[in-house]
């Protein structure tokens, strides 16, 4: 689709970095009961390149919102540096920048239009003829596997679906940075897959998507990079594969009537494993990134003289990785 140039939008930027945040500290502070004060965000470092889709996972919705608002030029920050598309941050905050599309929830879409109509409506100023535009939008809905939303009036959609409709509109824009700030929402696998497709679309035109969420499953499906925002600091950032490999070391989930006894027996056989008991389950973790082989697991059980009701191979997930990080922070 051909875009008409929005006001202030210049030629496509040759910039490699879409976001370069270094030492970013918020002006907002936590004040604890004892009167101690501490910045909500402290020394945040984040670099997002063209074509990347980042998921920032955190345990505090307010921190996630704040981070995306600072990056999206909605709020000012205290100290540090934040550069967008290698242009420097705007002095005037809250001003809509042509290269940043900020989405916070799904309340900004009108309820009396259906999804297709809304997307046609927001793109009415494109130079592409209506028929061609509608075909392109329909194709996009098919490609993103979000066709089930096509003709549903927006007022009947869930909050998460409305947010995805906003994201579809952002996918049609030329904004190089799309910020999807949805810490209060959770997404079903179908929507998560749709977000993944939209992220690919944004990446395909040289943009980047930044998702702030507490939904690890969605982030794992949709993003290729992730970072954890814990206690105001961005920790453990990297590609999704790296994070899963280094942080989620749970190999097996064993189920037994007497999990404590099972854990004790296994621990004597394999002291190099980390074993944690959750209700009827024993979770087996390896101490390094190497995955525990299935034969190794069975041998250990045999050596310990234990039987299990169920043995489940644990898939590496962002949720587990996040739990590990939280456990590391004693949260």
């Amino acid at each position, binding site marked *: 689709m051909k875009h008409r140039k929005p006001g202030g939008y210049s030629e496509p930027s040759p910039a490699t970095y879409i976001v370069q945040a270094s030492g970013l500290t918020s002006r907002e502070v936590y004040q604890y009961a004892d009167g101690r004060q501490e910045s909500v965000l402290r020394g945040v470092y984040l670099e997002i390149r063209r074509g990347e889709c980042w998921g920032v996972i955190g345990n505090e919705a307010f921190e996630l919102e704040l981070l995306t608002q600072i990056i999206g030029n909605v709020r000012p920050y205290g100290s540090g540096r934040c550069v967008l598309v290698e242009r420097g941050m705007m002095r005037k905050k809250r001003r809509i920048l042509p290269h940043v599309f900020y989405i916070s929830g799904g309340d900004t879409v009108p309820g009396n239009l259906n999804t297709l109509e809304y997307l046609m409506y*927001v793109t009415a100023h494109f130079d592409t003829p209506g028929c061609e535009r509608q075909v392109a939008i329909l194709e996009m809905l098919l490609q993103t596997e979000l066709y089930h939303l096509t003709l549903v009036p927006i007022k009947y959609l869930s909050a998460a679906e409305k947010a995805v409709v906003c994201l579809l509109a952002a996918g049609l824009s030329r904004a190089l940075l799309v910020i999807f700030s949805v810490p209060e929402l959770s997404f079903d696998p179908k929507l998560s897959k749709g977000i993944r497709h939209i992220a690919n679309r944004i990446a395909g035109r040289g943009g980047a998507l930044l998702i702030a969420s507490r939904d690890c499953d969605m982030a794992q499906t949709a993003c290729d990079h992730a970072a954890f925002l814990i206690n105001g600091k961005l920790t453990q950032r990297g590609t999704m594969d790296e994070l899963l490999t280094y942080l989620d070391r749970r190999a097996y989930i064993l189920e037994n009537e007497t999990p404590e006894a099972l854990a004790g027996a296994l621990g004597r056989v394999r002291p190099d494993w980390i074993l944690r008991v959750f209700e009827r389950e024993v979770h087996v973790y390896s101490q390094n990134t190497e995955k525990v082989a299935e034969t190794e697991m069975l041998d250990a059980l045999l050596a310990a003289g234990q039987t299990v009701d169920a043995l489940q191979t644990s898939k590496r997930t962002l949720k587990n990785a996040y739990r590990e990080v939280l456990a590391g922070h004693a949260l």
Partner: protein
Amino acid sequence: MLYDTTFISKEFRSVYTQQGFSRNRQFSMGIFLGLLTFAVYFSLQTLKESVINDVAPYLLLPSYFSTLYIYLLVSLVFNIVLFIVNYEYMTLIEVMQNRWYALVQLGYSPAKLIGGKIVARILAQAGIYTVGYIATIFLSSFLKFPLVLDYIGTMYIMGLVDIVLLAVVSLAVSLFLKDVFNARYVVGMLALGIIGFKLLTRYFTILTDRTLMNNLENFFDITQTVYMFVAAGIIAGSIAVCLARGTRLAKVYNPPLLKTLPTLTNKPEGTVVLGSPSDGRKRSRILEAQATPVQRKKPWNLAAIITSVLVIASITGMLLLNIVVLAFGYASPEKETSIYGIIPYVFQSYTMEPEIMYNDVAFFRKVDAQAELKVGDVLLFKDAAGGVNVGSLIEFVTDDVTGKQTGALKTDITNYMDERYKGMAEQTVNRDQVYGVHVDNNRWFGAVILFANTILGRLVLLLIPTFLIFFYEPIVDFFRSITKEKD
């Protein structure tokens, strides 16, 4: 099907999801307003012989003037209700809610959006108004009233000015009120303000005068009223405010207004987030979030409370009115109703005018044979045949020989249609026949009782409370939901 929805066509659609349905709905709303006007006109006709005829005779004339005048009132009230109910779609609150964010990002001009919104809103409301106006004229034509084109045109323009004024003021005000909950009430108050302003500027003096209404220039005569000039100024000012502030707001991302502060889920008790105010002042900090769980808000809000109070008051009022009407109906010359020693009567006679007018509710204090009476008192008594009479005491009858009072009283009516018959209704009654003395009368209460006794009145006063009792919860829920803010 090609979705070529433009901004203007979306605005005309209002809250509905389909363009055609919205168009039909707007047309049918216009027709409904015409029919409603007629229903009000006919209801008022039943009150012709009441205080209404003295206070607002222009509502009861057998003329297009009356039906159209009623239409102007009905249409104004309807528009106020429409703006309150559909506030989120009909005003510029959507700019504050960032609903134009995607549009501006994708190439729409904020100034054009604001202009389009103003034009669409005025045209949509004017469309409904015009359909209703034509429907009222059409229905009035069946009553064979003489058609006077002069005031028909003037009245149309005056009604249109009201609609435009309400629309632009609501649009302008919505840019300053982020809280939808309060904003709805502000629209209602603005409408009251407009009506108050009309009263102050003697606008109604011209509007209620058929002769003055024949010439539109009277509204532009500053010696008669300044309303039109002030209204034009307000309209122009509101449009300017919409364009200036609306365009500015549409270019920024507006922070959402939260009813309750965000809760920090992983922070120790007592932790709060202090933010910097947007104007950069360093000393004062604002509270942005807190760890202490906020007590769950009661599902009640002001709108629900006001609605509940209004609904309960309406039910109680209407039921009480029904009881009073029944009591009055039950009253007969033989068995009158007495409430705390006061006998009320719907006075359907011209005989005691001007003290008691036709259809007034007259109140008589119950008296016994020992009560002191004085000349001039209006007495309630039973004549020899047992019929109830009302007359003014003109003389205490005295014995010609002894010169002492006999105990008999001379009464007469105060209003003779023909002076030649004066004294013909004079009666002499015994003191013990008198059982009431007039203490007061109420003209408005009489009009209400009169209306309540009509078929429409009975329907309204019985059906509406029944409807309200059955649908109390949905009504309150509706007002609660339309004013509910997202936390």
